[in-house]
């Protein structure tokens, strides 16, 4: 099942890859696919985001693969990955060559400090948007909070935290009354 054509997917993913500077790059995907184009529903994005976090490998490329698969099947996953990684890889290769010749001065460092501060503001807003409406009930909120404290302030190893918290979350689910299933209406995949 293809929601969008491969060409459109490649175009949008390439642009998303190009325009994603700084950390927290999933934010750019949310903006491009959920808010601007409505190719992916919010709850679908959160599912894919979670899957991309839990799977081993770089987050952003995993997210590109998972979203690509959702939008255009197997080919979408492959082309989504290439579209996200290749342009940046070529650029960074060029930058590495320049760096090897000593072409970077203190100005670049200052610009980078400003960019990374701004990125925190961006990911804060996007994360709040993603969180809003995706946590159902006090148990889910407690699991999210514990996970945050463990990997954030406590700096515990992520793998261990995910294993423990996933087990805890499954256990809580088991003992909780079954919630109503998430709505999954079909949505036409076209650009507004």
């Amino acid at each position, binding site marked *: 099942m293809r929601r969008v054509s491969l060409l459109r997917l490649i175009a949008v993913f390439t642009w998303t*890859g*190009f325009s*994603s*500077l700084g*950390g*927290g*790059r*999933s934010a*750019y995907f949310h903006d491009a696919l959920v808010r601007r184009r409505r190719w992916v529903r919010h709850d679908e994005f959160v*599912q894919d985001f979670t*899957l991309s*976090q*839990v*799977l*081993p490998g*770089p*987050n*952003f*490329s995993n997210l590109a*693969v998972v979203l690509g*698969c959702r939008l255009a099947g*197997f080919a979408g*996953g492959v082309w989504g990955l290439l579209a996200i990684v290749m342009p*940046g*890889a070529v650029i*960074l290769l060029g930058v590495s060559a320049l*760096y*090897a010749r000593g072409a970077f001065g203190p*100005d*670049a460092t200052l*610009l*980078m*400090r*400003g*960019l*990374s*501060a*701004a*990125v*925190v*503001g*961006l990911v*804060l*807003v996007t994360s709040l948007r993603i*969180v809003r409406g*995706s*946590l159902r009930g006090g148990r889910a909120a*407690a699991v*999210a909070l514990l996970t*945050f404290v463990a*990997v*954030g*302030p406590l700096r515990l190893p*992520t*793998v261990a935290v*995910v294993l423990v918290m*996933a087990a805890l*979350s*499954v256990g809580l*689910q088991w003992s909780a009354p079954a919630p109503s299933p998430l709505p999954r209406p079909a949505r036409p995949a076209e650009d507004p």
Partner: protein
Amino acid sequence: MANLLLLTWTFLWLSFLCVGGGLGVIPEMERQAVTIHHWLTAREFVDGYALSQLTPGPGMLVAVFVGHRAHGLLGAVLAGLAMFVPTSVLAIVISHHWEQWRARPWALAAERALLPVGVGLMAGGVYTLARTAIHDGVTVALAGATALVVATDRVPPVVAVLAAGAVGWLLWR
């Protein structure tokens, strides 16, 4: 040749350590590249990480930078392939099947159970970024201003981020 293999192998297993955000793997990558294998200096590694953040695409492209410092073009290509290809193949296979699995009760339960964990990881990622990026009044102001501008939805995020970076550069210069 042996060194190229070692480089490829190191980034291959490092890629599988990237769970829940690339930042988590950075300390181990630095230990391998700087302390153990001497592919580059600590200063170069920090610069490389910063440059990978500044250039488009995944932050884990820092592997390309390290590979280039270690072995030139071939090192860069091999390190990049090792970082992205195996885990992406795994991601494609799993997400391909996930579409079929997600109709089943256990998959729905797993998805519902993992959702709050994912939200917590995301919040942890914001915290980790902020811990290194926010350290004085100017950085707080830049982050706050960017958040407000992005929240209005009037400006593409990349424009807001670049503008804030330029303002910071002007203030600090």
